[in-house]
């Protein structure tokens, strides 16, 4: 009797396991496949550009002021009038984020008057050394659309490969 009960219990347990074979999977083959994130998910940062290729960031440092984790460092400089980096007189020659310190609160995005700093859905924060998480302008800035259309994204170099969706710095 007792033996029969044990077999029943075993069968019932295996049945549950077996039953999942026919249910939809909840895991995905990460990193080959990714689950969609919530629409307002705040992941890794980018520095955006205008359509004409100029950087949106004007180096105003409001993100740095707003950052509760003090992980942003911005230093500004004056644009060369004949070859400006951003519209107007001022651009950020230095823009660094310590991603290990960042709490992904999105205050920088809210503070930004030009919509330059944006938090993307990307969240693959991987690295082997601390220094890999101290990202600079090259890492953050999206590819220049003018250069991308001229020579293709692959040839855009630098910032291009590191844009969201691409491999992280390593």
């Amino acid at each position: 009797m007792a033996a029969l009960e044990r077999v029943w219990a075993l069968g019932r347990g295996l049945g549950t396991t077996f039953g999942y074979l026919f249910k939809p999977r909840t895991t995905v083959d990460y990193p080959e496949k990714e689950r969609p994130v919530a629409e307002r998910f705040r992941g890794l940062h980018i520095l955006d550009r205008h359509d004409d290729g100029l950087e949106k960031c004007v180096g105003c440092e409001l993100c740095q002021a707003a950052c509760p984790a003090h992980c942003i460092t911005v230093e500004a400089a004056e644009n060369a009038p004949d070859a400006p980096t951003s519209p107007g007189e001022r651009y950020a020659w230095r823009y660094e984020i310590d991603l290990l310190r960042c709490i992904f609160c999105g205050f920088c995005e809210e503070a930004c008057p030009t919509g330059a700093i944006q938090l993307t859905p990307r969240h693959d924060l991987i690295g082997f050394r601390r220094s890999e998480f101290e990202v600079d302008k090259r890492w953050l800035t999206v590819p220049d659309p003018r250069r991308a259309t001229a020579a293709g994204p692959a040839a855009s170099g630098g910032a291009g490969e590191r844009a969201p969706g691409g491999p992280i710095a390593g």
Partner: protein
Amino acid sequence: MSSNPPAQSPAGARPAVDGPRPAAPAVSPPPPATVTCTIDGKPYTFPRGTLIVNAVRQVGHPIPYYCYHQKLAPVGACRVCMVSVLGAPLTRPGMGPIVTTGCTTPVFEGLEIETMSEAAKLARKQVLQFLLINHPLDCPVCDKGGECDLQDFTLGYGPGVSEFAERKILRRKADDLGPFLVLDQERCILCQRCVRYENEVTGEQNLVLKERGDRTVIDTGRGEPYSGYFSGNNTELCPVGALTSRTYRFKARPWDVRPVATVCQGCAVGCNATVNLRGDRIVRLLLRDNPQTDGGWLCDRGRYGFGHTTAPARLDRPLIKRNGELVAASWEDAVSAAAAGLRQGAAVLGGGRLTDEEALLLSQLVRVGLKTNDVDWRVGYQTFAAPEAVGMQGAQIGDIDGADLVLLCDTSLLEEAPVVEIRLRRSAGRNTSVIDLGPVRNFRHGPSRRIACAPEDLPARIAALTPDFQAAKSPLIVWDGRGGEALAEAIRGLGARVLVPAEFNNARGAEIAGLVPDALPGYHRLDEAAVFSKAWGAAVPSATGRHTQAILAATGGDVQALYLVGANPLRTFPDGALAAAALDRVGFLVVQDLFLTEAAHRADVVLPALGPLEKEGHVTNMSGVRQAVRRIVSGPSGAKADGEIFRLLAAALGATLADVPAEVASEPVRLRLPAGSASTPPGEGLRLIVRPALFAGGGTAAHDPNFDPVRGGTVVRLHPEDAAELQLAEGDAVHLQSGGTALRAVVSKDGGVARGYAVLAAHVAGVQGLGPRVRVAPARAEVTVG
């Protein structure tokens, strides 16, 4: 100021300025000194003449304003300081309150002020909306963003949105306005603080309003660069981001700088300033009001003189001469080499740029370490720092305010103590008469009685002024100590207080510390050497030492080694030929400085020192006020503070330095002055005189990258008629020839120079090598002859 009885219209009278003004004509009965009025329902009492804008701020109901400024006369241009007022004669009986400007209306008896009435709030809101019609909203880019009155007041009192959808008028942006300023005409709200500042305060008058109506802009008369010594104050006066500093451009935002209070050590005025640091870098200096010294302004040399802290040319390791070349060495090697070389027959020159504490350490090092009194801080034209030390009565800088007669004795406050000139100009516009004596016009921006005379005639001319001084109630003499005993005697004869701008910023501290050959610290006689020996625990020599001239003349003889502390006699000593010969002759030369100066190139050991913003201590200003200075930046890692170097040297020489000065009760000694020349130098050509110039030379300014735009080449100033006779135009290159030496210079015509003189700036390389007379020849002719 209003002499009307109170019942009549104070509004019709000229608005009062806060602060002293010429005395009003006597009226009887005199109106009471205070008036009582109500502000937002509560009664308050103010001194008569207080402006509403100040009254409401004093009681904690501030209103916004742009054009008004505490240090300027009111003008009523911006119309933002609107308040509701009720009370005759502004309003008639039965009439309600009216809205008026608080900056041009003084309070009067029975006045009722409402700062937050609906009418006043609406008026302010509308004015702010008008001000923003053409103002670009580029606050994230603007250097003023974060400390901008327009931002703050618009947020506090302005409308949330603008009703103006029209396009903004575009004007010149990032306009290059002279060496230190950047002008953005779009951001200007035409408050005219800058224009008024230049008219009322400095007299430099570069900026004016041009055009009219909506096209009005601030600009220089013909678009020429801003020229003047006080341009930087405009950046602090400007309530918006129209006038900004080039050195601060985009360097930081107001919220990421750390303010540290300090004292400017560019000259001996000791202006108070606030250094703004971003990280460990100085990004700007702001003024910090101290009525005793600066009176609330900074000159451009003080404001922008911080570039030397990060200048690439700074010395950051000791150097020792090996096989005729200076090579880097460790501190141990350099100090022991220096000590070994200085052990026999050493003399010390310099010290006018140290802190008080360091000067005292050097004074001890000389006496107990080098066992000599051959020490002198006077390596330039100045013969003394404290008037008390040469039997004169000293004056405070603030005494200029109350003086009724000021004699400028061959001394330009503008070049030697710039901020004091602002004070003199303010007094000169009221009830101070200025006598401007000497071969070059000293007082350029105010009224004066000009007496042109040769340097050797100064004593006679001064003696002739005795009646003026006897008639004056509180006369004052400004003399930088150039000349000698004859001139000093003439000045003593006038019996007035004397203000002495110093050639080196802490000359007075050096003198008190005993860096002179004929006195111990505290101006004590050398006979007190025994007392000092006891206090310092080592023998102090009591024989009188030699002054600079004698030391330089004795090099190669019994002065076998020379220790130059922050001194470069090649640039500063009037007899340049002697200085050059002395440094060539001397057996062993140690130079302690911030930069590799001409003297350092000839040194056997070069010791890198920290600069004025890089060490702690006190400095004594030209009128004897002691002020603390702090270490704000760390300076080059391999450099050491002068005081530390003195201790290292003392240890290497087997001496220890006491930390406290000796307490001695004896009569202070009177310093000996050189006799001074009483004859006109013979010979042909123009008479060469060398006078201080603000941006020329200087221990740090000469190497400061921030001053690159103003340093320019060597400029020789000539009277326009002399220039015409020599067929020279403004800007012509010339050769100044004197004996066997020549110097290339650029001509500047200056009506303030007496005829027959050629004026060069002091502390510039090559200037001191020329003789007392020069032949001025066009540079082109020189090429064809040579």
